[in-house]
Every structure is written in C-alpha cells, then in structure tokens.
C-alpha cells in the first residue's frame, strides 16, 4: 500500500543549495520537506574549507542581502577571515574565510531544525512524480510519496557518483558518502537529460605529521569584517587559526610525470568534464610545464580536528603516487594521509533547460539548483538554492518571480550564464564574468538587493527601513560634499600642504578634492567644519561613489544600453517558424530555449547578431501589425 504525506515543497538534497532553498520556502510560509541521504551531511563542505573568496565573497554578501543563510552561518563558524585585494579597487575586494567544517554543518543543521514549516527527512528520492507536465510529488526509496506542488533538485555531486583514486574506483558520493542512483531514470522519463561532469579534491592529512617551520605562515586580518549585514562586527573579532604556504618542486613534478599514465584522466578512465580553473596537480604539471613550482596552502579543517586540507594539490593519482608526491613538498616530508585526494564524477544537467527562475521549461513546478545545474562551489550552489527557493515560493504564492539582472547582482550573472550560455565544464563565479562589477560591489549588496529580499518577504520591514535610511544618508552626504566650495584661501592651501596635497589653483568642491589620490573623506575633514558624524557604512559608500564617480558613471551608461536590450521582451507566443530568414541553428535554439528578452536571446550560443536583427525586425513588424489590426477594429467601431 502506498503511503502519502502531503506537503507543498520538496527539496531534494541538503547541501548548500538545498538548505537555502528549503529555508527560503519554509520562511515564506510553505510546508517544506528537505531530503538528505544522511542528516549528518547537511551543509557539508566536502572539498575546500573556504567560504567566500574572489567573487564568491560577493555571492555570499548578495545571498545575505536577499535573506539567505550562508553569511550568517559562516560568521558563526569561521576560524580565519581575510579581505582579498585590499590594495585594489573596491569592486574586487572580496571576503574569504576559513570555515570550521564540522561547526558550519552543525550550525546549519540547527538552523534547519529550528525552522518552522520545515521537516528534515533522511531518504533517497528515487522518483519525481508528474501529471500532465506538472510536479505532483516525489517518491522515496521506501515507496512513500510526498505530495507537493514544487520540487527543487539539489543533488550536488551525489547522483550516480563515483570516486577515483588511480586504478581504485568506488561508487560513492563525496567523502565516502552513499551516492544516489534512483533518480536518473525518473529524470530521463520526464524529459530531463543528464550529462557527466567531474571535479576533484586534494588529500587531507594529519596536521601533527607536518613541519610548519618549513612553511610561511598566513594569518587572517587583524580586524574582521563579517559577511552578514545582521552580524554585529564585535562578535567576529575572534582568535583566528593560521594557514601555511609551501610549494611543489621539480621532484614533485618528476614523480607526477613518471606516473602520468596511471592518472585516470590521462588514462581515459574519467568520462566527465573537469573544470579548467581548478586543475589537479597533474594537470598543472602537464599544462604549465614551464612552471617549476606551484603554491600549496595547508589549511585547517576545523578547531576540533587535526585534519588539514592540502589546497592546490588536488589529484586522482593512485595512492602510492600520492604518498610519494606529497612527501616531496617542504614540510610534508613525513605527512600522514587521512583521506586520499580523489576525482569525482557525477550526473548533472545542462542548465540550458531551465528558465531564469531556475524552473525547468518542460516540467511545471520542477526547479533545479546548485552543482546539479553544472556549477561548482558552495557559494554558487547556495545562491542558486536561494533563488530556486524564492521562485518556487513566488510561483505557489502567485507572486511575481524574482529574476536578477546581470546589471544588478553576481547572482544575476551566475544564473544567466548557467541558463543561457554553453557551459562545458563546472561553472565557477569570477569577477571578470560580471560586466558591471564596479556597480556590483560586495560593499553595496544591501543597497542593491535588500529591496528584492523585502519584496519577496525574506527581509523584514526593519531591515528594509534601515537600508532605505542608509541610502538617503549616502545621497544627502554626497550632495552636501559636492555643494561645499573650497576657495584658494591661504589657510586652505596650508591645510592641503600639511596633507601632502598640491595647492588649489581655483576654488573647487570638497567632493572634487576627495578625488585626489592622497586625500579622502577623512583627510578633508578639517576643511569641512559642518560635517556631522555618520556611520562608517555610510561614509564608506560616500567615499567610493565620489572617488570613482567617472568610472561608475561610465558603467551606468553601459548598463542603460544593456537594459534596453533586456527590456525588449519577446512576445511569449512568438512562432519562430513564422520569422523568415533565421538561420536553422538559431531557429532551433530559439524554439527550444524561448528567451524572454532580446538581451537574453543575444547571449544564446548559436544565435548571431544577424539573427537578432532579424528577430528585432520581426518584432517591429509584429507590433505594427498588431497596431494596424487594433486600429482596424477601432475604425470598425466608429
């Protein structure tokens, strides 16, 4: 006898995508069940122990601004924190933390357990149930059915996973966890084809076996800035744990070269496509043969464990090669391996079959997020999980979906890239993927996105009021600084000289003075007697906006151009067969993909500028026809 349980949303997988999706749905008042193969692996970090990093730190900030959990959770459980690129412009400052992996997972599990409307269920989901193209429920391995209106697939790297250490192949998920196998046939059955990607991870070692005196110590920042806008900065000034830097050498590389035929990748055993941005040590040695050494960071996995992560030396070499090659690295001569480095292959989808809401185009109510969509990284997963959760909820609640534009958020860039572009390897966020990154800074995520979090209901009135007030203070202060004129009077010149700045030739505004490289908001304080004390988060924005005004204005102009294309919506009922002159490839792509705007269409691979022109003309023609027909009707009525 089949047993039914009624709920509203089923989230399949409790990794970084799954937990955000489940929290978003349950927080928005929907009855939600989150399924996990093992409740002890909730929000597990099976690879590196970082949260954040270049551009990933931006994602965490954005998740937080929208009402997600990742930022808050890492603020509770980090053991080292660093703002990267501080010597560079504000757009590329990026926060990166070392997490205490076990604590991170535990803290997140507690958040889920305390969450109203949310049930955690340890089970393997084996089937997505649909009726007439709509999700009606999911079946678990016991046969029990959870009826729902939306399901969110966040299976990460678990689906049909296998791990490779040289010739040794085990059919497990990451870190020896049980893999899931049942879903593949079900997905194929409802028109969701799967593909195979691979990724890898380095060895974990017993920290006691390493000689840190041969490495360079890497400390965290003296003053830690929290990820979350809700975290009190005072709470994150903790005692931090250091990391260590060492290097591979010619001897390491020689061992790898001698054994390259035993690497599953080079031996052709691995079928999946791996990421180029995160190469294994054997890839680095083969592809960058001219480099005589590569960096290796030794990073603690947590406070409560001796385990350390050997960052920079991921591998799928056989154990004996691993043992020998790691031992060539200074400080690792007597290393004791706890877990081998391994490559992992898994099933995922081509996200081209999703809408920008992360709902599949062919199954109503089925959403997908995280590594299952062909991305990589905890932050990328969490961002998608949050957006899939929000959009599943919006759909059920009958509200407008939330799609962030490329000009609004890294999350917008991430999802647009995944859904629109032809990704042939696991997708990782990078600041260079964001065309308008000067506007999408980690320091202004709240100013950019709080309003959307508020609209969907994950941000409270109080939080929203706070950001509105902040924005007003920023704008008022900028206007005030622009209006104050500083004349070339003697006392002003003396003040400037005292601050190593050139004399004024003519009067200028305080804002203009602030643009001098040697000056800034603090430095011109003496020329600004009427200044009122403002919070640091306000003066920081004032300073950035004034100092980089020219660049910001240029990017805003580019955004205007971009928005013009994004705002040219393609009629939902367009019949591409009726659009003459489209090339066959473009026609197929457009029919299959059904882009929502000209902007999105122009980013589809296989659609050329000429096809876009043809489409634009068709749309103009269509508009004129509609007008004429409408006018014809009007005339008839006269």
């Amino acid at each position: 006898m089949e047993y039914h349980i009624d709920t509203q949303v089923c989230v399949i997988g409790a990794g970084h995508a799954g937990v955000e999706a489940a929290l978003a749905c349950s927080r928005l008042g929907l009855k939600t069940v989150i399924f996990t193969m093992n409740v002890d692996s909730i929000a597990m970090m099976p690879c590196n122990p970082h949260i954040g990093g270049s551009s990933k730190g931006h994602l965490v900030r954005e998740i937080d601004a929208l009402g997600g959990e990742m930022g808050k959770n890492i603020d509770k459980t980090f053991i080292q924190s660093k703002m990267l690129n501080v010597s560079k412009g504000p757009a590329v400052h990026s926060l990166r933390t070392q997490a205490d992996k076990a604590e991170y997972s535990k803290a997140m599990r507690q958040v889920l357990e305390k969450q109203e409307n949310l049930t955690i269920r340890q089970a393997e989901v084996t089937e997505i149930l649909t009726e007439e193209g709509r999700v009606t429920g999911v079946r678990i391995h016991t046969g029990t059915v959870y009826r729902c209106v939306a399901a969110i697939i966040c299976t990460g790297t678990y689906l049909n996973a296998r791990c490779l250490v040289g010739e040794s192949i085990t059919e497990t998920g990451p870190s020896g966890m049980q893999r899931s196998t049942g879903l593949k046939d079900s997905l194929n059955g409802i028109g969701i084809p799967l593909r195979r990607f691979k990724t890898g991870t380095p060895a974990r070692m017993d920290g006691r076996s390493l000689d840190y005196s041969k490495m360079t110590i890497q400390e965290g920042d003296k003053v830690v800035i929290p990820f979350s806008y809700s975290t009190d900065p005072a709470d994150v000034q903790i005692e931090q744990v250091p990391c260590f830097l060492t290097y591979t050498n010619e001897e390491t590389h020689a061992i790898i070269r001698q054994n390259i035929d035993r690497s599953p990748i080079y031996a052709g055993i691995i079928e999946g496509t791996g990421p180029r941005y995160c190469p294994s040590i054997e890839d680095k040695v083969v592809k960058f043969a001219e480099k005589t050494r590569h960096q290796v960071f030794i990073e603690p996995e947590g406070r409560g464990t001796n385990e350390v992560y050997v960052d920079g030396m991921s591998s799928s070499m056989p154990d004996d090669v691993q043992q020998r090659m790691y031992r060539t690295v200074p400080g690792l001569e007597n290393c004791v391996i706890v877990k081998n480095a391994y490559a992992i292959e898994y099933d995922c989808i081509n996200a081209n079959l999703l809408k920008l809401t992360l709902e599949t185009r062919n199954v109503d109510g089925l959403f997908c997020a995280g590594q299952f969509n062909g991305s990589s990284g905890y932050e990328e997963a969490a961002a998608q999980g949050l957006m899939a959760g929000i959009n599943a909820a919006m759909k059920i609640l009958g509200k407008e979906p939330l799609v962030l534009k490329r000009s609004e958020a890294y999350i917008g860039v991430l999802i647009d890239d995944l859904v629109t572009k032809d990704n042939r390897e696991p997708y990782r966020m990078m600041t260079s993927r964001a065309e308008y990154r000067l506007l999408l800074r980690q320091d202004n995520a709240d100013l950019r996105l709080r309003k959307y979090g508020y609209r969907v209901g994950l941000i409270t009135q109080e939080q929203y009021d706070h950001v509105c007030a902040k924005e007003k203070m920023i704008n008022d202060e900028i206007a005030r600084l622009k209006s104050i004129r500083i004349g070339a009077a003697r006392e002003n010149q003396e003040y400037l000289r005292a601050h190593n700045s050139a004399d004024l030739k003519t009067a200028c505004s305080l804002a203009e003075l602030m643009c001098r490289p040697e000056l800034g908001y603090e430095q011109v304080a003496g020329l600004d007697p009427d200044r009122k004390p403002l919070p640091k988060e306000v003066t920081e924005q004032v300073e950035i906006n004034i100092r980089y005004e020219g660049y910001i204005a240029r990017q805003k102009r580019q955004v205007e151009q971009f928005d013009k294309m994004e705002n040219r919506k393609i009629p939902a009922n367009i019949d591409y067969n009726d659009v003459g002159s489209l090339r066959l490839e473009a026609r197929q792509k457009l029919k299959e993909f059904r882009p929502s705007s000209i902007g999105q269409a122009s980013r589809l691979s296989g659609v050329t500028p000429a096809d876009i022109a043809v489409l634009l003309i068709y749309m103009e023609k269509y508009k004129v026809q509609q007008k004429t027909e409408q006018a014809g009707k009007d005339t008839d009525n006269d």
Partner: protein
Amino acid sequence: MGIMALMYDHVQADTIAAIATAMSEAGIGIIRISGPDAAAVGSKLYRTPAKNRTDISEWRPGTIRFGYIVETDENGEESLIDEVMLSWMKSPHSYTTEDTVEINTHGGMFLMNRILELVLKSGARLAEPGEFTKRAFLGGRIDLARAEAVMDLISSENEFARKSSAAQLEGAVSARIRELREKILYEIAFIESALDDPENYSLDGYTDKLMSVCQDLEKEMRSLLSHAEEGRILKDGIRTAIVGRPNVGKSSLLNHLAGEERAIVTDIAGTTRDTLSETVRVGGVLLHLTDTAGIRKTHDKVEQIGVDRAQKALDSADLILFVIDSSRALSSEDEEIAARIINKMEEGKKCILLMNKTDLSSGVKEEDVKALFTSKGAECPPLLFCSLQTGEGTKELGDFISEMFHTGEIAQKNEIFISNLRHKGAVQEALDSICLVEDSINNGMSEDFFSIDLMNAYRVLGTILGEAVEDDLVEEIFSKFCMGK
C-alpha cells in the same frame, strides 16, 4: 483613434537625405529627401524651367516636374548646377511614409554628390545607411513580403560580413583588428587572473608594462584610423577627371575603361558637350571618371556650360588624367590645360599625362610635352603612352593608378561620404578607451579599473568583425544594409 493617427506616431522630427540609387551606377540617379522639411529643402534649390522659385509643398502631391538645381553663392547669385526632374510625395504616400522630395538627375556620381551637398547645406542631414528603409519599415510601409526580403538581405549581408570582413574592411585591416583584440584580451586576462587568484599572480610592476602596451595599441589604432581613409578611397573610389583638348580621345578613354560605349565618340571635335561620368574598377581601385568637354574657348553656349563643368570636375578631382594626342603637335589649348593642371597640382592634386594614339606616327616630342610643365617651373607629371584604338598601354595605366593609390600618392579630400563610418567610429572608441586606461594608470588607479576600459576597447573592436552584438543593433545592422534601400 483611427489608423491615420497611428501611422503618424512614428514620424521622425528631422529631415534626412541621401543618394537613393546605388552609388556605383551611373546614368540616372535619385537624391531622396525625406522628413517634415523635405519640401522646404527642395524649394531652396529647385528652380522652374523659367528659373523661378516655387513652393513645392503647394504642388499637387505625386507630381514630377522638370527644372534646375541652383547653387546660391554668398552674394545671393544663383548658378545652375544641373537639369533635373523633381518629384513631390506627401506623407503618408511615399516610400518612407514621410513628406518626400526626390531629385532625379542624369549627372553621374560627381553631380549627384554635388547636389547632395547642397541639399545637406539646405537643412537636411545625411541619412544613415538604411535609414530610409528603416523609416519605411517603422511607418508600416513595408508589407510582409517586403519585410521578409529585407530580412533576407540583412541576414545575408551580415553573414557575409561575419565570414569575411573583406566587404567592410580590407582583409589586412581586419587581421590587424584581430591582432589588437588579441593583445588587449591578453592583458585583460592577465589582470583578471591576478584579481581572481591574488595569492598566485602578482601585479607588482605590471602597470609599467601595461603602459607600454597601451602606447603601442594607441599608435596602431591611430595608424589604423589614418588608413581607414585609404580604405574609404578603396571602397568609394577616386574622383578622376579626364581632360584634354577636343578629339584627343578622352571619351575613348572613358569608354575603354568602362568597357562599353557610353560617350558618343566621333572624329568630330567637340562631340562631348556635357560631362559624362562612369564608375569603373581599374587595378583594384574604383575610379569615378568624369569625361569633360575639351577645355577651350568657345562661343557655343551649350558647350560653354560643358567647359565650365569641365573646370569644376577639375576642381573636385583627386586625380587628373590629361590626354594628349601624340600624333599631332601641341596647341595653345594644351598649354592652357597644362596651366590649369599646374594650379591644381600646387593644391596637391595628382596628374597623369597620357600620350594617346601611339598607333599613329608621332607628331610631338616627349621633351615638348614635358616642357608644358617644366617651362613654368612645375614638375612634369608621370607620362604614359597608349593607344586607345588598339588598347596598347591601357593596362599599364591601370597598374600605374593602382600603384599610385596603394603607395598613398592620392590624398583625398575629407568629405561626408565616408562609407565605413561605423568601423571608424569603433576604432575611435577603442582608442578613446585605451587613452582612458593610460589616464587611469597615470592617476594611480588600481588594476581592476584598467580592465573596464580595456574590455570596452575589446568589445567595440569586436563589433567591426561582427563578433559582438551591439546594443543599438537594429541601427547597426541597418547601416550595413545598402544605403537608401
């Protein structure tokens, strides 16, 4: 609201004009003026057969009338430019659905350009390529079948441009654009890697290197821009005046180059009473040839007009082909012509002396011909021998002109008919972006700011190769589309 009101929604505020017939065709040409001021612009230039003014907007729409186009000098004196037929179409009953005046001339490229210049001086602006079609299209003037045809054309045009940029730019130039893009991309990639992985790649000392790369890029782009002008000549052609006293073979030269009998050729001196024009391709160079009536003192009124025009052709030419009959002795007319050419050479015009009729026995010494110039202290232009009767020596002429062009010998007047304005604009924008990078370096900005402008340079250069989508895409694509229609 009725249909008529809707149809007017799109009407643009400004009035545009361009040559609406293909540029390479001689014979009848049409200059189209479209927009609210079309009639006013036309009225300024058009005179009735009795040389009177008329207000075109009062004509019955859909009429066509004979008359003259005049040019008014600063003293208010009018001189005739050409005989024309002028037609008047009132909105929405025209191709563009706007008020439209069309000036039909028989005058060939030179006169058409001349009239267009006058039209532009009288208050119209130069239509962007394809702008008439766009207005027609937006006006709902183009029906389904027509729109499909337009799409086909755009599609094939663009496909062509994408596959081989030869149509837009000479191959060598597009190769240089690619090279520039590669260089820029390399630098962006380097900066981005360092920002993405700051612990692995250092940007220390990088700005000096980037500065020198930017300076190289700047230099190359500036040279590209100056060569864009050469590219324009290659595409638009060299305005070439054929001069010489009557019956030396000017019309034969035109016909020979054009490959068919256009001008009336007889043995009677003064047969050509008007200027005749032809556009031909010689050795890879497009020549807009104007065959002038012989320059000589005449009392024949009709011929006098022709002689004046010949002088004007001389005035506006980039290249002068001076034809001399080698079978006969030089005359005072040859001297007169040489004197005029010397004037033009002093202005930087190029000239080639062509000794025709080498099939007949020689009647003039080479030294005497050279003396036409050297006796007046001028350098003698290059001298070529040919027989237009037998075709001997004509290939050499083509080669010679082609070489003259490729070595940059012909400096063209900067004029409004720049064909690949879009490409030039793109290189200019890329150059501006590179200069902004240099500014950023000088202002001590950090590296991430450099890539913003580097990226822009990369992107705009890509639009030349059709490798990036411009935002104002319809505008862009329409401009690749044949001018006018």
